[in-house]
């Protein structure tokens, strides 16, 4: 009887360990609306790229391309802000702000393995340390 109880306890311990491992293996993400990319998505994407570089997971041309893609997203987002400023000053804004924001979101998604939801205007990115 004591042996059965001991085995049950060991089994429960092992199941518990398996549960913890499952939790740690999930991918943690952050979802932001297109309007909030400047303050949330860019720092998240940059930290993600830097982590890949520090860990040695991304090197050479692949890393260089990732950084260039990020920089391109920065340039396009800067253009989007210029459009906002033009609008505030009372000017006409073309091309559309939303199309540029979608382009920026897709660039950041491409470089991090994230996803873009154009129907809800959201970008989902993996968080640093969120992928085990």
């Amino acid at each position, binding site marked *: 009887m004591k042996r059965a109880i001991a085995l049950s306890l060991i089994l429960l311990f092992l199941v518990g360990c398996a549960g913890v491992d499952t939790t740690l293996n999930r991918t943690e993400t952050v979802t932001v*609306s*297109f*309007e*909030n990319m*400047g*303050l949330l998505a*860019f*720092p998240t994407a*940059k930290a993600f*790229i830097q982590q890949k570089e520090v860990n040695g997971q991304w090197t050479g041309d692949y890393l*260089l391309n990732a*950084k*260039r893609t*990020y*920089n391109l997203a*920065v340039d396009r*987002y*800067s253009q989007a*802000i*210029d*459009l*906002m*400023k033009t*609008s*505030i*000053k*009372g*000017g*006409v*804004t073309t091309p559309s*702000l939303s199309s540029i924001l979608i382009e920026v979101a897709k660039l950041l998604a491409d470089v991090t393995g994230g996803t873009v939801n154009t129907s809800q205007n959201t970008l989902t990115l993996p968080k640093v340390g969120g992928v085990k």
Partner: protein
Amino acid sequence: MTPLEIELAINGLIVLINVLVSNIKAGDKLTEEQKTMFLTRLNNIQNLVNSSKFPV
């Protein structure tokens, strides 16, 4: 204000601006003081993002 409160305030500002931008004449609806405030904050965000570029 806490960092979170500041972030939420700025985020709210950007949402507002995005709504305004959808109207071509949005600028006409703002006072000069409001325009200055929005432009200053947009400049800050733009500088913040631009400074995050990788040196490649």
